[in-house]
């Protein structure tokens, strides 16, 4: 059984309300933290090994350690609740069912960072969740957890909610800050990093919802206990949002010691592939990370079992591995078309590009067009090489990582499923009504994977 640190109480009746949450021991981490020194808390977070849950996996304690502290300048904590990476819907669950857990984690984090004001930037479409969070914020304030001189500690803190308005790019931290300032979500050139110059040019920490919620069990149970859960540099638990062709889509809190195979097939998690079909491929960490064929998903190229953690999912680099990313786990069965799937993702990135850098603005549109052609049976063999060429020219040549995020899915699809692209070109009529199918993707690894 995986230990539950975040969702242990999610199913308690009424846990969304302050009274029930408090009755179940909620806000005890704030009581504990306010008796500690802020620097001690930062140290605890470092020791816990917690890594950011927003996608990049950056060590949280280290990020907090970078926060500049110039005299007389306010510092801000910003919670990134923009959650828009296709396949990802875990933060929604946390906020919808355990709004007080996020608020609790943010109060402790803000105290550790010396921040008197924090913002939760939530995607605009999560409108009903904004209402849930606002109610929880009001309750927290009425009960003295926000406001002036919290628990007589001398620490003041106000927390506000801000709704976005439909823009994936605002999940990128500097675009998010621009948006919070009432502007278009154009990412900023880094450096300077937000830790030095963030919201209104003041030092700012931006963290994901799940990262901030994880601060609660770390403070309650101690960094040492937390760091013993999981494996290697993947400590604690991780929320995985599982979707696609599986029997039990939903949110799972897992210890990062579970194998991918167990996660897909066990009844404790996804419960296997839906409708008795076979597994073809999977995008294990949100739409930006490389898609893997079944054989490379379940085992690494070395033939070792693959596990649901940062290190194991990226074993083999992009040639034969992928990434844990945001934990958006998208499963494709034998009937799914890789070309069509890649096309919808390319369209997504073209739609979401902010347009500041030409490789991203032009490249995403071009890739979308070519993929649509191939999917419609109008592709040429040379298009496949052209796609490869375009994605290579985007990667690494843009202001923010959205360019890379748009390039990687296309690269991985061609790298692992080139024969399916070629089949589309060679069978322009047939590809409109039939699927390429499973081919050898599910076989044991029998080819040395190139590139």
């Amino acid at each position, binding site marked *: 059984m995986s230990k539950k640190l975040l969702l242990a109480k999610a199913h308690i009746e009424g846990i969304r309300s302050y009274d029930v949450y408090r009755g179940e021991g909620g806000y005890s981490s704030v009581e504990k933290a306010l008796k500690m020194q802020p620097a001690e808390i930062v140290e605890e977070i470092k020791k816990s090994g917690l890594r950011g849950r927003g996608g990049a996996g950056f060590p949280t304690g280290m990020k907090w350690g970078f926060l500049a502290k110039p005299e007389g300048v*306010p510092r801000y904590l910003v919670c990134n609740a923009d*959650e*828009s*990476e*296709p*396949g*990802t*819907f875990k*933060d*929604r*669950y946390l906020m*919808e069912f355990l709004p007080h857990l996020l608020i609790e984690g943010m109060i402790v984090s803000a105290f550790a960072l010396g921040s008197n004001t924090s*913002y939760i930037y939530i*995607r*605009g*479409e*999560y*409108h*009903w969740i904004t*209402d849930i969070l606002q109610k929880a914020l009001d309750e927290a304030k009425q009960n003295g957890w926000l406001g002036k001189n919290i628990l007589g500690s001398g620490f003041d803190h106000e927390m*506000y909610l*801000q*709704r*976005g*308005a*439909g*823009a*994936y790019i605002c999940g990128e931290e500097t675009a998010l800050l621009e*948006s*919070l*300032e*009432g*502007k*278009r*979500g154009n990412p900023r050139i880094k450096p300077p990093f937000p830790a030095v110059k963030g919201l*209104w040019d003041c030092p700012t920490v931006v963290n994901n919802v799940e990262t901030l919620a994880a601060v609660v069990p770390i403070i309650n149970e101690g960094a040492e206990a937390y760091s013993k859960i999981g494996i290697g540099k993947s400590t604690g638990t991780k929320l995985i*949002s*599982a*979707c*696609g*062709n599986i029997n039990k*889509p*939903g*949110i799972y809190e897992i210890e990062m010691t579970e194998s991918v195979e167990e996660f897909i097939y066990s009844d404790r998690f996804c419960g296997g592939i839906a409708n008795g079909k076979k597994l073809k491929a999977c*995008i294990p960490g949100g*739409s930006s990370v490389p898609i893997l064929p079944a054989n490379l998903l379940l085992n690494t190229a070395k033939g070792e079992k693959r596990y649901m953690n940062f290190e194991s999912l990226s074993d083999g680099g992009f040639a034969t591995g992928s990434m844990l990313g945001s934990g*958006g786990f*998208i499963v*494709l069965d034998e009937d*799914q078309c890789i070309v*069509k*799937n890649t096309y*919808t*993702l390319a*369209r*997504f990135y073209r*739609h*979401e590009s*902010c347009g500041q850098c030409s490789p991203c603005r032009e490249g995403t549109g071009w890739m979308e067009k070519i993929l649509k052609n191939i999917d419609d049976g109008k592709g040429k063999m040379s298009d496949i090489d052209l796609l490869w060429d375009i994605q290579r020219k985007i990667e690494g040549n843009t202001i923010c990582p959205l360019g890379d995020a748009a390039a990687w899915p296309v690269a991985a699809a061609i790298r692992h499923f080139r024969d399916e692209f070629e089949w589309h070109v060679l069978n322009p009529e047939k590809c409109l009504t039939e699927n390429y199918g499973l081919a050898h993707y599910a076989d044991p690894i029998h080819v040395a994977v190139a590139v």
Partner: protein
Amino acid sequence: MIKFNDENLAEVEKLIQHYPEGKQKSALIPVLHLAQSQFNGWLDVPVMDYVASLLKIEPIEVYEVASFYSMFNLKPVGKYMFEVCHTGPCMINGSDKIISYINQKLNIGVGGTTEDGIFTLKTVECLGACGYAPMMQLGKNYREHLTEEKIDAIIDECRGNNSDTINNFNKMNA
């Protein structure tokens, strides 16, 4: 004359307090949401100019923001917007079928509005409901695990009801 109702005016005052003095521009996106909900679901130029005057910023600062974010409508829309997600995970689970069913049932294309001005169909990119696909946004809420029967029921619900019931629809995903 374009003017917020008292409730929205009070809300604007409250929003501005969330930010340090002089940073009232930060309230722009939330204020545009209020404006869109009070003024028929879209942002006409005079509405945007009014928002600019309220926040003491230039009109162009409002236009450039309103045109950047996909939730802001710069053209009139129907009373009910069916915003159907068609990104990968929803596509895998049959969003194409749902979209063509709505096309046919309401006799409108994507981006179109019915002649009576009641329904608009829009496709949107991932809304964070991938595990409950296919899905759409309707007002404040999501409608998930869509089927043709559910679409029929939703259309009837909209035809027979007012926007309050739609917006108060409160389904939770367990």
